[in-house]
């Protein structure tokens, strides 16, 4: 007798797990050697038998000297129950299923029940999954309170960063040497020196123009000579005027210093004179001159350079202040509502809606916004 091989076991498996009867018949007729096909109905009887299927299977494999294939056949038996249970739960029946149900075969019934539970478990898991997906769909088409809060937070963060940048820039300016000194003595010396320099330049170039190598002088230099001659005095005057701020518009008013105890009506309340220079209009005028928008103005390189210098100086003055000769001088871009406060011995300014420290310095200092707690304290004074 030929022993049952792995190939035979495979064929036997295919037979039992075949979906349709025709396939089973095909396998039955094709299996080699042909006597093995006689094992198949015997095995079917054992698998669908009422009881002692295991014992019967052991006896069977002994009878065909195929004890080494016992485990493989047990495997086929289990798969066969699974296969029939799937059909049974789908509402399909056949003689084998009917026998198993009729004989109340424990293996088969347990397998069928397990598969029902498996299906239900999938259903319930799926339901939870679907509900979760629906919630996500709802969230996609809605804005949550948390998202709104976050949007506000990020916007606030951006604004704070911009304020910090302004403070940083003001700190850098404070650390740099001032462009313009406002000491009258030094002012006069500087004006004289500049005048002398320009006169010298004029003299040297004037001499040079009389020389035969005039042709070698570049156009720029020629223009410079011309500028020096015609604009020497007006340029000096412009610089001097700038330094003296005589050309800059300003407003001056006496302001009451608001304190905790004051209501502003007592005759002996502290007052302070505030002179506010309004820089923007001057800066705009210079911009127009630089861009050539103003007619009949000279447009040489030197002139442009000096105009730019003047403009930069004015821009550097913006948002600075000092306190000299009992006058608090503010350099602002344009007219703003200014109030002065005093808490204990410290002074503060409110320019439009922002609070600044006011140290009453003699030299120019940038306006630095106060912290939120200080602003709140000052607000209490007003309200």
């Amino acid at each position, binding site marked *: 007798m030929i022993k049952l091989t792995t190939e035979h076991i495979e064929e036997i498996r295919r037979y039992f797990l075949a979906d349709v009867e025709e396939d089973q018949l095909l396998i039955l007729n094709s299996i080699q050697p042909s006597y093995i096909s006689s094992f198949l109905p015997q095995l079917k009887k054992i698998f669908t038998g009422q009881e002692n299927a295991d014992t019967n299977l052991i006896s069977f494999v002994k009878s065909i000297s195929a004890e080494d294939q016992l485990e493989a056949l047990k495997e086929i038996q289990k798969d066969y129950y699974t296969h029939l249970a799937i059909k049974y739960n789908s509402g399909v029946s056949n003689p084998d299923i009917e026998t198993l149900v009729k004989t109340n075969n424990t293996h088969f019934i347990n397998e069928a029940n397990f598969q029902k539970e498996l299906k239900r478990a999938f259903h319930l898991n799926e339901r939870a999954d679907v*509900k979760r997906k629906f919630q996500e769909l709802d969230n996609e088409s809605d804005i949550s309170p948390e998202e709104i809060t976050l949007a506000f937070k990020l916007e606030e963060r951006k604004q704070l960063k911009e304020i910090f940048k302004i403070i940083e820039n003001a700190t850098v300016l404070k650390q740099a040497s001032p462009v313009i000194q406002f000491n009258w003595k030094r002012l006069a010396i500087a004006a004289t020196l500049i005048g002398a320099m320009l006169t010298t330049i004029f003299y040297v170039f004037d001499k040079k123009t009389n020389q035969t190598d005039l042709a070698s002088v570049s156009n720029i230099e020629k223009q410079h000579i011309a500028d020096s001659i015609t604009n020497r005095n007006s340029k000096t005057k412009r610089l001097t005027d700038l330094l003296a701020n005589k050309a800059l518009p300003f407003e001056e008013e006496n302001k009451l210093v608001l304190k905790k105890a004051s209501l502003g009506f007592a005759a002996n309340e502290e007052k302070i004179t505030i002179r506010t220079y309004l820089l923007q209009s001057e800066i705009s005028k210079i911009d127009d001159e630089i861009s050539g928008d103003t007619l009949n103005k000279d447009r040489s390189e030197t002139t442009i350079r000096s105009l730019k210098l003047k403009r930069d100086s004015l821009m550097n003055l913006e948002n600075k202040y000092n306190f000299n000769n009992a006058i608090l001088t503010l350099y602002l871009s344009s007219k703003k509502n200014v109030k002065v406060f005093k808490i204990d011995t410290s002074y503060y300014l409110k320019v439009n809606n922002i609070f600044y420290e006011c140290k009453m310095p003699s030299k120019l200092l940038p306006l630095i916004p106060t912290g939120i707690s200080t602003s709140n304290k000052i607000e209490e004074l007003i309200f």
Partner: protein
Amino acid sequence: MSDDDIIEGIKNFDDIAARSLYNSHKDYCLRFMNKMYFDEEGNKDIYQDSVIVFIEKIRDRKLTLENTSIQTYLNSVCRNQVLVRLKQKNKPVLIDDWGNKYNDKYTDWFDEQAEIKTDRIKIIMEELQLMKDKGQVCYELLRKAFFENKTMEAIATSMNYTNADNAKNQSYRCRERLKKQVFERLKQ
């Protein structure tokens, strides 16, 4: 998507169909439920469950819409649930005038018996979830074979098995493994 496309998509476990089903009928259902009884969260819950009921009925082949739109079906199911809940709370209906936008015969809901989670069911659910979280092929195989009721040929094609027999053998191996894990936990 048309009603027919949605139904076909639902049968094939198509996510896009499920999304379309949910989104395109939601506003109408919520509007009239809120008129009956204003409970935003509760009514949204009813709507979600109604859509799930519809999906399950379609997949189990237990529902055929004859001359009825999906919207009417969902309106009917939602309306019925609102009435049930109002009755339980002894609250009156505020407005109940929907013309012909609902049909009294559609009162489907979840099968309460099937809702009971026995210990065994809970353990099977947990083990399946574990399989899914670990990305195991067994989960897909079991799902297609035992939940989606796909044929072995279809499974073999979609999961790149050489033939249907291999797919079948593999799915049975997976089932055995799951069973072993479940019964081990039941013994504890």
